[in-house]
């Protein structure tokens, strides 16, 4: 824009240089002009007064001071009037230069100590070399008036456009119907914008003031505030460009907002965002919050209290309930002694939370304990089979640094009459494209009755222990683990139903249901067993299987006891996990055989 402005200045200077006109035609040719704001060469200037309407043509090559090369430049006025001294009208004009095409009409009035300009442009397009400041098909008006009082210019202006789009890095104004009113003073080199108001279509009105040093182009102070504007418009035009590369860069939002920020001496000095009845939803489905009411102040010098409340939401499909949070923000850090995130009938309670942004990266740590959440609700919400029990736990410290979440301490799920402990939890890039989770699981005394009823597997009575070590999930799918499950120590009922035997064998076996049916065993609905066990060393998609004990040809999965007794043996040592999961659904052919003693 500075370039366009400079071109215009060079142009107007050249126009005022010509004083003598009379008779019918004025032609001026200038080889080269050097001015403080740039250079001009090969200028051909012609005013034709013979026609009913005088016309003007100007061709030149201009080089504003900051440009590396000369730019060809053509200006035409189909109606050029200079009847009164100090008045210039250029109607049906056009300005064409590299990357500028501007049909326009202008009325310019100049006296020694004041001037005014009214300009209308129609379907104008412009762009700078980098394309970072550009407009297309802009139709609108520019007004500017200034008065020199005691060597200080008092000026006011307005720019409005009814059609077209404008991109001013990093902001994009796609909806026409925007108006920018501004007034202030200019005393070289300081441009003081006392009142500026920007009415942006679909956002609302913003007001501000600024001080700019025109010699260095440095903006000294800026203060912008907007009340009760549309949050969706505010987000898409002003906030999204600022947070494009963060987790908040791809949101659908709604609601109302107040917005204020202040820049002093080129540094952000304060900021405030208030949200009313807003909602945000990550378009990648990672998180969402609805009915947000938030007060988010920030000040470079003073600590501020931040508060956020929302009615509902989810993070990675974990449902979040009605929540009120408050914290203190102090320059680039957050602290809160206690935060509670209600989840279904329980809650995640954070203690001693502290977070900081260092070199654009988040670092935080906190303590955490769970107010028990019922598995029944939890499993329903996640569309899992309905489970009974509670999730509870206490984690001394959770930390997040370098996009890695680490849990120092164990979380316990009290489910299926026993416990599942999760320890050594680490998640790399939890909100990224490939989140990677590392953890160990410890299962103790799970009630097989509850478990098998939940997953409709066929009834097994007994207790089960399990260990999953070195578990790695990529994008929440297992790719590495050393797992084993086996019957718990101690006395308890150990019975397996015929259907469960059929299902276990059919997981990897031939038509064992038929095999059972061929023997007298079909008369027994259940059998006693001594041990059940299965192990899997998973490497990528291949599981190296094992059982309660090895045989010459494979391993024992169910070791029977008493009479009648069934053993279920596995023969395939290496099983593809995706096949196994597929089989679990379909229960089709395989290599497991049942031995009947």
């Amino acid at each position: 824009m500075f370039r366009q402005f400079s071109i215009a200045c060079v142009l107007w200077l050249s126009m005022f240089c010509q004083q003598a006109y009379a008779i019918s035609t004025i032609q001026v040719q200038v080889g080269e002009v050097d001015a403080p704001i740039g250079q001009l060469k090969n200028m051909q200037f012609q005013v034709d007064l013979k026609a009913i309407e005088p016309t003007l043509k100007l061709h030149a090559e201009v080089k504003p001071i900051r440009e590396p090369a000369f730019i060809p430049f053509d200006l035409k006025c189909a109606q050029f009037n200079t009847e009164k001294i100090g008045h210039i009208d250029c109607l049906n004009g056009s300005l064409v230069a590299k990357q500028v095409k501007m049909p326009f009409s202008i009325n310019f009035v100049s006296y020694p100590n004041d001037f005014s300009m009214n300009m209308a442009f129609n379907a104008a397009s412009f762009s700078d070399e980098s394309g970072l400041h550009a407009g297309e098909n802009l139709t609108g008006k520019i007004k500017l008036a200034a008065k020199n009082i005691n060597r200080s210019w008092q000026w006011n202006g307005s720019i409005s456009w009814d059609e077209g789009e404008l991109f001013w890095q990093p902001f994009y104004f796609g909806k026409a119907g925007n108006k920018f009113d501004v007034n202030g003073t200019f005393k070289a080199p300081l441009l003081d914008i006392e009142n500026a108001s920007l009415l942006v279509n679909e956002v609302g009105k913003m007001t501000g003031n600024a001080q700019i040093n025109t010699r260095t182009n440095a903006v000294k102070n800026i203060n912008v505030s907007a009340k009760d504007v549309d949050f969706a418009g505010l987000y898409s035009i002003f906030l999204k460009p600022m947070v494009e590369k963060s987790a908040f860069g791809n949101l659908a939002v709604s609601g109302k907002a107040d917005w204020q920020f202040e820049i002093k001496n080129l540094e952000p000095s304060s900021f405030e965002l208030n949200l009313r009845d807003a909602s945000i939803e990550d378009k990648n489905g990672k998180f969402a919050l609805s009915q947000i009411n938030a007060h988010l102040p920030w000040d470079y010098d003073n600590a501020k209290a931040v508060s956020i409340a929302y009615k509902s939401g989810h993070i990675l499909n974990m449902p979040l309930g009605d929540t009120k949070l408050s914290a203190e923000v102090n320059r680039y850090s957050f602290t809160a002694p206690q935060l509670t995130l209600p989840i279904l009938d329980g809650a995640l309670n954070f203690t001693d939370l502290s977070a900081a942004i260092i070199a654009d990266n988040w670092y935080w740590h906190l303590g955490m304990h769970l107010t028990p959440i019922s598995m029944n609700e939890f499993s329903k919400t996640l569309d899992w089979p309905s489970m009974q029990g509670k999730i509870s736990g206490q984690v001394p410290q959770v930390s997040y640094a370098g996009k890695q979440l680490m849990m120092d301490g164990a979380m316990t799920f009290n489910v299926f009459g026993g416990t599942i402990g999760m320890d050594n939890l680490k998640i790399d890039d939890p909100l990224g494209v490939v989140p990677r989770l590392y953890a160990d699981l410890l299962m103790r005394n799970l009630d097989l009755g509850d478990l098998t009823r939940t997953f409709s597997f066929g009834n097994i009575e007994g207790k089960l222990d399990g260990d999953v070590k070195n578990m790695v999930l990529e994008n929440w799918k297992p790719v590495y683990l050393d797992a084993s499950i086996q019957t718990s120590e101690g006395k308890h009922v150990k019975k397996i139903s015929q259907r469960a035997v059929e299902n276990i064998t059919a997981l990897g076996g031939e038509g064992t249901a038929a095999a059972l049916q061929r023997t007298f065993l079909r008369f027994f609905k259940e059998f006693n067993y001594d041990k059940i066990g299965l192990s899997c060393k998973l490497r990528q998609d291949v599981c190296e299987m094992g059982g309660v004990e090895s045989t010459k040809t494979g391993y024992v999965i169910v070791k029977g006891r008493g009479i009648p007794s069934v053993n279920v043996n596995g023969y395939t040592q290496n099983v593809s996990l995706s096949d196994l999961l597929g089989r679990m659904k379909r229960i089709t052919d395989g290599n497991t055989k049942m031995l009947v003693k």
Partner: protein
Amino acid sequence: MQKLMMGFLIILAALFSANSVNAAADLEVNTPAIAALKNSMQARHTQLAPHYGSGAIGLTSDGLIAVRDTTAVPLRDRQGINALVAAENADRNALYKEIAAGNGHPEWRGDIQSTFAGRWIDKAQGGWWYQKEGSWVKK
């Protein structure tokens, strides 16, 4: 649009078909991480395709993409173009790393990346731009 989609399908087919440059590496290796990255890249492709066609974005010689000509980007997309390219390159870098890891040879990453670079360019549609010896060339 149909043409662009076809182009993309051909590229995908080429990428995940047998690889002759690095005979030992299996470019078809599939892990949950690779699947997630492919999905992410495929979803983004509908946003990128018009910019390949317009010459706004080109294929670099190291298997990534770069903004070639900002002025060719429609104004409404101009602000997001750098973030879009950065996100695509983050996925591409991760993809090369994951394919090397999926082959059990993280040290193959560089070779896999250059194999992919060649394939992206071979299979690019006519009219797309790519980098050759430091300059942009229109295919």
